């Protein structure tokens, strides 16, 4: 097991290197003058000042030299200085990270528990009123744009009822988390519910389920040990893969709820061509993806020992 994990960890290095190189070249090629765009709303700057700022940030060096310098610093743990704010990129990311993790964690908790329960109940009670209602809800969950959902929640729970704060992070208190995580997690929950339901329906018809039943096992044991466990593989895949896109969707939710996360830091930095920050954020996201994939792989082995066996043989 640890050998497999170690091997997977080694794959991280070339992936991160490739990602950083592609990103660096792309960011250097897209039009847009960093020094100028940092000037924000007042869009003019005299030529000499701009040139001095370019020299200060090393923007006049050729791309390979800039990349080499960047990598040299990165390897010593220095992610560079943001052009737009003159602060350390690492600091900027560190300030935003708790908010992002908090939001993604909240959304995931909501989506996974809600999705599994709804999906399982609908799968077992196929065709019942609960099944129909929850699947209608799932279709709605997938189709409703999350910014609209966010606005509606805000309107009812903050403006009309006054139960929850309308926006903001509140330094991590739970009441601020509720609406953003529902908004972010709704589509994710709906997806998990549908996949769970479908794979339970599949698993129900397998021969080993019939065998278990004919052995005289109680219905509960059949459901828990034979149906659910086998139905979990596709569900875990979906949870893992979608967790990545959850990170991508945070931007919209962050915008609506004024949530100070990484997503918006990234987007704003792209618009201002704040290259070091974009680099830092993207590398962070790539790294998170890799870690999530690794966790999913480990979870697979736990759920289905056959996978561990296959992996060990490689």
């Amino acid at each position, binding site marked *: 097991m640890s050998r497999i994990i170690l091997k997977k960890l080694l794959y991280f290095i070339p992936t991160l290197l490739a990602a950083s190189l592609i990103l660096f070249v792309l960011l250097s090629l897209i039009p847009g*003058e960093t020094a100028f*765009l940092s000037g924000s709303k007042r869009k003019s700057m005299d030529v000499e000042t701009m040139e001095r700022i370019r020299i200060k940030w090393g923007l006049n060096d050729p791309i390979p030299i800039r990349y080499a310098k960047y990598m040299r610093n990165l390897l010593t743990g220095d992610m560079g200085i943001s052009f737009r704010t*003159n*602060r350390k990129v690492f600091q900027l990311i560190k300030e935003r990270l708790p908010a992002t993790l908090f939001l993604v964690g909240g959304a995931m908790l909501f989506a996974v528990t809600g999705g599994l329960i709804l999906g399982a109940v609908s799968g077992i009670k196929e065709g019942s009123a609960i099944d129909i209602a929850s699947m209608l809800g799932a279709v709605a969950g997938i189709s409703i744009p999350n910014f609209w959902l966010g606005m509606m929640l805000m309107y009812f729970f903050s403006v009309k009822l006054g139960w929850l704060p309308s*926006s903001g992070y509140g330094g991590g208190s739970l009441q601020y988390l509720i609406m953003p995580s529902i908004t972010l997690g709704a589509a994710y929950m709906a997806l998990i519910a549908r996949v769970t339901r479908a794979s339970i329906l599949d698993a129900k018809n397998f021969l080993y389920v019939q065998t278990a039943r004919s052995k005289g096992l109680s219905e509960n044991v059949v459901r828990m040990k034979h149906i659910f466990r086998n139905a979990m593989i596709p569900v875990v895949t979906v949870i893992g893969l979608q967790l990545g896109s959850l990170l991508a969707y945070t931007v919209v939710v962050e915008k609506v709820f*004024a949530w100070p996360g990484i997503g918006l830091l990234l987007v*704003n930095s792209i*618009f201002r061509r704040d290259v070091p920050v974009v680099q830092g954020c993207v590398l962070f996201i790539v790294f998170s993806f890799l870690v999530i994939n690794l966790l999913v792989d480990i979870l697979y082995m736990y759920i289905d020992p056959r996978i561990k066996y296959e992996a060990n043989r490689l």
Partner: protein
Amino acid sequence: MMKKKCNALLLILTLTVFSAGNIFAADAIRKGGTLVVPAPYGNAFTTLDIIRTAELNTMMVAENIFEGLVEYDNVTSIPEPAIAEKWDISADNMVYTFFLHKGVKFHHGREVTAQDFKYSFERLANPDTGAYNAATLKNIKGYEAFVNKESDQIKGITVIDDYTLRIELGKPDAEFLYQLAVVGGGDVVPKEEVERLGRDFTIKPVAAGPFKLKSFSGNEVVLEAFEDYYKKGPYIDSIVFRPMGESITRQAAFESEEIDISNVSTTQYESYSKRYKDQMIEVAEFYIRLIGFNMAMEKFQDKRVRQAFNYAVDKELIVEKYYRNKAYPAVGRIPTSMASFNPTLAGYSYNPEKAKALLKEAGYENGFEIEIIGSEASTYGIPAVEAAMPYLAKAGFKVKAVTLDEGTLWDRIVKGEYEAFISSLGGEPSPTTHIGRNTSDVSRGGGNYTAYSNPAMDEIMAMANKETDTEKRMQFVMAAESLFVEDPPYFFYNYNKAVLVSHPWVHGLVPTPAEIMYQPFEKVWIDSDSPRAEN
């Protein structure tokens, strides 16, 4: 003093102030309480370093922490005494002697002296600092030598004694005081704190403004009243700034009374005008939305084409229907709230027949093809071009509109790789800058985006820059503007109407044309109806 009065009068005439109640509140000023203010230009705070960023969210917060020699009056935008209680200007306008208030304190307790200003100016100019605003000092004698590291100090800045500072200019600049008053342009900072805090100074600034920093996070900046502030105020105990980039977020927060004031967006304007009729402040900001023509291109040489474009569009109707009245149709280049606005300027009124005739005279009877680039911004991007397209088509302009992201857009504008562009320009309170940016010696990146050249106008602007008498200088600017408008490198579309709404317990807000969120919070107070009146 008389001049100031004249200017103020002019401004009162030209500013559209709906809510007088907020300004002339008769109640006695109440002390205490907390004001919660949205920072609407982004969803997080990244820095408070006023000289090394141009983020508007940073500026609107930091201007309450920092203080300079002079500062703009929030309403008239004329430089007023700040730490310099008075000043002398030599007859040739080249030597400024500033006399500082005695007993002005930094937030950490030390007294501000003239030496601190010299240090702060040199820090601003030093290329190692990388200040985006460094050029505000470029007319000071010895600036070039200092930034090129040929000298270890700016020769033109002399400390006479603790309370007297002399600044000698290298070339005449009638609006040098305006440069010093720019937010982030001439604020004083204590050397020992800057050096002690190093890079942390960006998030723990120490200065001499009316508020000092209590806490900073990406999600919230809290300022508290500086008890040793040398002027009157502040009356409130603290201000909480919360970043809220989306108007819908601000709306929910305002309606649930989580924030005390908010700027109003175009989509909210109509309903807010009804619901909060007596709680709104409106002003024509120093910004203008316009479409610029690339004057380096052959096809724009004939001014009749550009005039035709200006005649072709019914701005009034578009402002009413598309902008839902949250804009003012433009007359010329200078917004109505500026001291240099010319009320007698005729501009271009809607005249489709004349537009067609001018195009025909210019030889484009079968239509004139034009590609306009712009961002997706609804009020100053391609959607605003689309609103004008039916009119333009009727006059014979075959418009192709191309949406770009801001970065690419400005790259192409500054490099001159375009036929026409739409954007919003301006922001500077200095009344000559708006026209002054368009003289032929200014580069595209420096603000002459269309590469405009008009020798007659250049000449008038050169005289304006030398003229120390404000009234006369304004006359020069107005004369230059009429030449500019007669031979227009732009289609003058409309001025932004900035709108601020507040809850009835907030007092002392004013229409600030430079940027509606630059409020004089040290003069603002809240009455006991506020949910945050006590803490």
